[in-house]
């Protein structure tokens, strides 16, 4: 590419490319972490983020493939996440299934279901055929495609929006109250289960969007294990970010940075084994969580059925 010299050369160019890569790598984690925040603020621990992301990624790939339109894939990812979120929400509210058990169930069903779906729909295990991306045209100077750019910007806008919703609107206040003390919400004449349902469905939609980013934003297919633990990293970001949308977003960016670093280091230091480098974001999450204990408190009724 020409005409954007500073991006290409020298130390500045290196930093700029690292920042851009960080943004791309953090976006899916940001989406899932925002989903985690809203779910946990309503009192539902969402261990199922990983599965919800997988559902979103798979649905996005399938829809984009069959209708040859990336934006349909994006919608499908959101809807699939919301739909699985709805099932999860029903399980933990109406049927009072243990939240952690239900969440693990969601993870198993979604990753297993997607693996089976690949065989069923694409006649091949492991990965789908290549599918149309959301927008594959490269953005000049930014080293990412247009779809990635839109979704990166959207992720940060959503973080701000969720902050405003949680802290400035009646609905947000009620969701937070539900996560702290559902009885108090009930005696205010409201139905805490409704807030939990809505929060968990929203959580699913956000995680699904994060999954769609992977399948049709960054790449152009769905492959088994493509979420690669990002749902769990997002869960760590929720805690590291003290259950706030902006905090969790910041934490997600830190984890994204480590993921980006792994590619960058691999480029510099050839003798380091790739597997060790790939572990970098997970080690970072572990260290962050170890440092965070004792300083923060989860919502008081997080994980407590009502």
């Amino acid at each position, binding site marked *: 590419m020409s005409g954007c010299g500073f991006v290409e050369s020298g130390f500045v160019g290196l930093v700029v490319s690292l920042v851009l890569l960080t943004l791309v790598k953090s976006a899916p984690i940001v989406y899932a972490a925002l989903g985690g925040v809203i779910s946990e603020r309503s009192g539902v621990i969402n261990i199922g983020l990983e599965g919800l992301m997988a559902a979103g990624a798979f649905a996005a790939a399938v829809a984009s493939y069959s209708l040859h339109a990336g934006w349909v894939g994006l919608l499908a990812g959101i809807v699939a996440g919301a739909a699985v979120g709805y099932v999860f929400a029903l399980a933990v509210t109406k049927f009072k299934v243990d939240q952690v058990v239900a969440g693990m169930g969601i993870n198993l069903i979604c990753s297993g279901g997607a693996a089976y779906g690949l065989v069923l729909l694409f006649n091949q295990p492991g990965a789908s055929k290549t599918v149309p991306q959301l927008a594959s045209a490269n953005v000049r100077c930014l080293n990412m495609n247009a779809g990635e750019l839109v979704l990166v910007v959207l992720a940060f806008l959503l973080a701000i929006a969720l902050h405003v919703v949680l802290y*400035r*609107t*009646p609905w947000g*206040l*009620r969701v*937070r*109250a539900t996560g*702290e*003390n559902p*009885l*108090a*919400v009930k*005696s*205010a*004449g*409201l139905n805490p289960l409704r807030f939990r349902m809505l929060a968990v469905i929203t959580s699913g939609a956000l995680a699904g969007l994060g999954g769609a980013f992977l399948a049709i934003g960054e790449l152009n297919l769905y492959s088994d294990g493509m979420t690669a633990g990002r749902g769990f990293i997002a869960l760590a970001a929720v805690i590291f970010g003290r259950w706030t949308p902006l905090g969790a977003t910041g934490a997600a960016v830190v984890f994204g940075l480590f993921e980006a670093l792994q590619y960058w280091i691999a480029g510099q230091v050839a003798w380091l084994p790739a597997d060790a480098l790939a572990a970098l974001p997970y080690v970072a999450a572990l260290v962050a969580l170890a440092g965070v204990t004792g300083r923060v408190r989860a*919502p*008081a009724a997080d994980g407590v059925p009502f």
Partner: protein
Amino acid sequence: MSTPALRLRGIRKAFPGVVAVDGVDLDLTAGEIHALVGENGAGKSTLAAIAFGELHPDAGSVESNGTVGLVHQHFELVGRLNVWQNVLLGREPRRGWRIDAAAARERVRALSKANELDIDPDALVEDLPIGAQQRVELLRELERDPSILLLDEPTAALAPAEIDGFFASVTQLARRGTAVLIVTHKLQEVIAYSARVSVMRRGRIVAAMPTAETSVDEIARAMVGGELPQIAQRAQTTPRPCLTVHALQAGSAESGVTGIDLEVRGGEIVGIAGVEGNGQTALADAIAGVLPYRGSVRFTPELSPKRERSRVETSVIPQDRHVEGLVLNFSIVENAVLGRQNRPGIRRGVLLDREKAREDAQAIVERFDVRAASLDVKVRTLSGGNQQKLLVGRALIDQPHFVLAYNPTRGIDVGAAALVQSRLIETRNAGTAVLLISFDLDEILALADRICVIYRGAIAGRFDRANVERAAIGRLMAGSQ
């Protein structure tokens, strides 16, 4: 006026092992304050919950003419939201799609002013002392302005001065036509403010009369079904050093303590008299070791010739039984041994001796008259007063060297309060040092050997039992000389 605002007929409600409410008829009249009294576990809270519609009766009917509001005995607040968010939850003032925080603040401020319930709308609820939390809970119901207001022990955690203000606003409400039911253990309140009184015992209404025609004594006799127990005699003791507090500083500038010297000796009860919010919480938490402090808190190890152990045994009756005292989903047995699980009788090797633990819990239940269907029920299902008795029993049963008692008779009926006070005196007689922090001056006067008045985090005056002057204490509590 003649048709009742709320009409209960033949209400019955049974829980496993106990009939909580057993065929109750009750009418509330618009514009009238109706007092409901009775022993702990008599069924008052259950009846209130049924009238509110939160519990369904097994039999009987509830007819109400208007909206019903209930102030719960145990608060239902969101600790990590602030005061106005709690008060206006579900009825938030809006500007467009957003909450209008300024308007909300103003609304709560106006409401608290009109009802003389002093509160900062922006304070975080979990940081408030329990009396202030009670005010928040009250404001929340007052804000909704129901036509029938049920109050379950609303004054249990209020200071005497606040109680007057509180009844002034309840009387106001009644004058405007609200039907009020108030559950209380403070019989003077019944006499002073109610128009009618109903007495419950073991799930039934055993007496109902216009307040003008009865007296504190008559109500108390109807409650317990006989005479009140006498309070135990204080024995002569030879006080020995136990706890020495020197230049204690702890807590925040507004509600902490700023340099307190205090001595509590074995065989005496030292009472801390004061209006809530003058540093009592910080004092108690610092001594209990859960709040960092400056200065010194020292226990004298060689306490009594009979106890050769080097460890000082201490126990605490905390101010909030739900937050700091009991595990509500544990059984009575489990709660009774909690914190005492290493005692020789209860532990066997690395295991708990379940039989011994049961016997031990049984001893507490008998000695402190805890009324429950069985030892295995969850503590959550006990009535509030019986939870409190269990907590007191656990703190006193082992005759520790030192006991910190924070409002030990909160929410306990008159008969049981006499029992708890007797047990405190017996504990003192046996040589235990007792630090009694209470907002009830009468309780302090009845129990304490020495009295310290706390005001704005400092000791404003000290009295011996021999030379107490009630009026002087009252003045010091209010901050004048």
